[in-house]
């Protein structure tokens, strides 16, 4: 079971991987060497002020032991250093579960991987008991973190209940566009130590709004605010209220060339983490995928740009204040998803045409660990969250 230490850091002992830690201050995961476990636990529980090494302090100490200025955001997330890990085994239990708490969303992002579950295609939860049941089933598979996503989780009437049920049992991350962020949400995040991942694909509004347009129905309800204006306003609002926040951006041909300068802007704003995602090709976004990413040569160029240019720039200029993660989505079945109606699924690793695949056909809402191992690529899952894809 995941435990929250005195420092606020969540830890869990994985039968295969050993001790995994999640920092709600940076939103990042780390695997920790066996030899350092005892002293690490002591330090995380504030029984000693000495971590196993300075590297642990620079990485896991952010937010409670050191200032962000002293942080070192290096990859991969293997502590104390990658050289201590000649082999990284796949984690036994999922490190992270993405709970699509609702399929409703005010946006209509061109690359959305969840379109087959959205806008009424999957049954929405309708009672608090359902939410309790889903939370119970999620905790049974022993994740370290649950990401509340969708759709747009902020429009779910059960968001607060879900957060309260998960509080202190797992780390909680909310993935949001910020479009409907309110003072009530901010209060909720502050009270329950929620880490927020805000989606913003470009600082140029017309590019971001092209990739993340507002759903027509939402314009009538919320007015014609653009998705970029609301995302940036949300970002500054969250920072002002001391909510821990990182930015997520989907890389496409449209916005890729702006990424370096965008990263500089995020760095100046004081964002501590930036995650770049390459589009997952799904059954419903296939046409958009080809337009946004292009052919294999374009895809390779995009990958090269991100891995060579951006990551090397991060090492030179932003290491001490801003983490940069890249999620290439080349293994679609590296993720564990929970649909609005509580079924556990993943993406097919054979063809985008297949769509979402139930992890356990017999018990779709309470999968066994064996069925998880049979459907989810646990090595890719581990690599994704420990950032060594």
């Amino acid at each position: 079971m995941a435990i929250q230490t005195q420092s606020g850091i969540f830890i869990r002992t994985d039968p295969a991987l050993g001790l995994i830690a999640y920092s709600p201050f940076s939103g990042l995961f780390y695997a920790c060497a066996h030899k350092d476990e005892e002293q690490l636990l002591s330090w995380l529980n504030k029984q000693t002020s000495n971590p196993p090494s300075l590297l642990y302090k620079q990485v896991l100490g952010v937010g409670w032991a050191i200032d962000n200025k002293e942080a070192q955001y290096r990859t991969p997330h293997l502590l104390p250093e990658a050289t201590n890990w000649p082999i990284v085994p796949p984690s036994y239990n999922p490190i992270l579960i993405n709970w699509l708490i609702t399929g409703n969303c005010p946006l209509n992002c061109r690359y959305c991987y969840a379109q087959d579950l959205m806008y009424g295609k999957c049954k929405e939860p309708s009672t608090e008991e359902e939410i309790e049941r889903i939370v119970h089933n999620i905790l049974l598979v022993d994740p370290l973190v649950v990401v509340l996503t969708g759709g747009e989780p902020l429009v779910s009437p059960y968001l607060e209940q879900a957060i309260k049920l998960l509080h202190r049992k797992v780390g909680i991350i909310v993935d949001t566009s910020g479009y409907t962020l309110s003072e009530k949400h901010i209060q909720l995040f502050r009270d329950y130590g929620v880490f927020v991942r805000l989606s913003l694909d470009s600082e140029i509004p017309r590019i971001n709004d092209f990739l993340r347009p507002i759903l027509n129905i939402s314009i009538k309800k919320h007015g014609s605010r653009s998705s970029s204006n609301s995302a940036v306003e949300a970002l500054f609002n969250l920072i002002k209220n001391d909510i821990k926040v990182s930015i997520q951006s989907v890389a496409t041909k449209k916005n890729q060339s702006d990424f370096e300068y965008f990263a500089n802007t995020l760095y100046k704003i004081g964002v501590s983490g930036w995650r770049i995602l390459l589009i997952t090709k799904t059954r419903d976004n296939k046409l958009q995928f080809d337009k946004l990413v292009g052919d294999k040569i374009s895809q390779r160029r995009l990958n090269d740009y991100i891995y060579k240019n951006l990551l090397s720039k991060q090492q030179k200029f932003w290491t001490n204040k801003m983490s940069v993660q890249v999620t290439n989505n080349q293994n679609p079945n590296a993720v564990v998803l929970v649909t609005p109606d509580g079924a556990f699924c993943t993406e097919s690793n054979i063809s985008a045409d297949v769509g979402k695949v139930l992890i356990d056909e017999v018990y779709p809402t309470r999968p066994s660990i064996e069925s998880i191992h049979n459907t989810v690529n646990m090595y890719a899952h581990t690599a994704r969250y420990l950032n060594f894809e």
Partner: protein
Amino acid sequence: MKIDFSMLREPYQALFTSGRTYAAFDKDSIIPLIDELKEYELIADPMAGFGSLMIWCAQRGISTYNIEYNPPTYLWGILNNPTFSDSISLVVNELISNKFKFPSNNKRFAISNSWYSPESYEIIMDLYSNIYRTTSKYFTSNAEEISLAILIPFVGRLSCYVPGNIVANVKRGGICLFDSLPQDFQTYLCSLENRINIINPTFINKEHEFVFGDLRKTEIPRKLSAFITSPPYPNSRDYYKMFGPENDCILYLKEKGNIEDYTVEEQLISCVSVSKYVNKNIDYSSDIVSSSARDFIRYIKNYNGTRQAKYDNKVYYVPYYTSYFFHIEQAYRNFSKYLTDRCDGFIILTNNTARNKTIPVAESIMEFFQSLDFNAEIVDKYTRELSHVGSINPRVKGFKAKHMEYTIKVSRR
């Protein structure tokens, strides 16, 4: 205080720290030419760009007469004009002491698809008024211009933009952060003062004119006997758009009635926008004097490439090169009217390539001056091959990567 221009846009960072940026003169190429013209008391640069020639001549005791049509580069020339450097130093010094109070709106940022948000425009107006109040104590006739010259390099800090892949490209729209704005402005002024203090003592001659004008039609109120110049390259870079935020700011201040006129009535030479020529079926290639230019344009017109290449040639490259050569000749024709019977000059330019053929910039300019009864020939000792300069395609090799820089000597006896 150390010199720090990191808060400025990239072209100005380069201009302030090294004195040059994209497409500017290379000092090593120009100094020998200045020395060859040392018998003359004044050297002209009718397409002055960033005014580098003016600085180097000033350091050698030679006066200059400069013309430039792109407003931000013209104002850069004003800011660096040795004639004004003593007084500008006094203005900047007083601005530093005054510590301008920025309007307090408690906003940390603005996000916009335009060059500036409304908040930024408001700050720009206030800044300009503040600078003008101080400048007008030291400059009677051109306080407005000097104020603008001091302000313009800083306005990029207030703009919403994202740099392109090279310094000549800039994209409109983005996030402007208002954090540390007062400190950044103070740092800019202090760094500007430091720079003036370093460069000012190197000037031996402080008689220089820098004039805003379009060489294609401007009237020059004097006769000129010596010149060194370089035309814009036909490399599809838009120098007006390179300074998009700055040009927008100038238009804004003009609309508000704060400044007179830096209107660019006709597109700059080598401007990339050719739609008006395509749409109106304007074809003035027959008005081009140089046969090498006409042959090149005909080659592009008849180029036997892919369907896409032929289409691109028709709608863009043919009108682009026609416009380029036509306007270059127009500019030099006008300029030649103001040259004395005995005169010497150098024109530095680069031939790059298009559609597997050398663009005959050097040949066409030589031919053109010869048609006006000047002697014009390439000076071999200054010819050099440049590396793959200014291209966004690093995979291009061989002929396509070849750029030859030529220096043409133009003279009349």
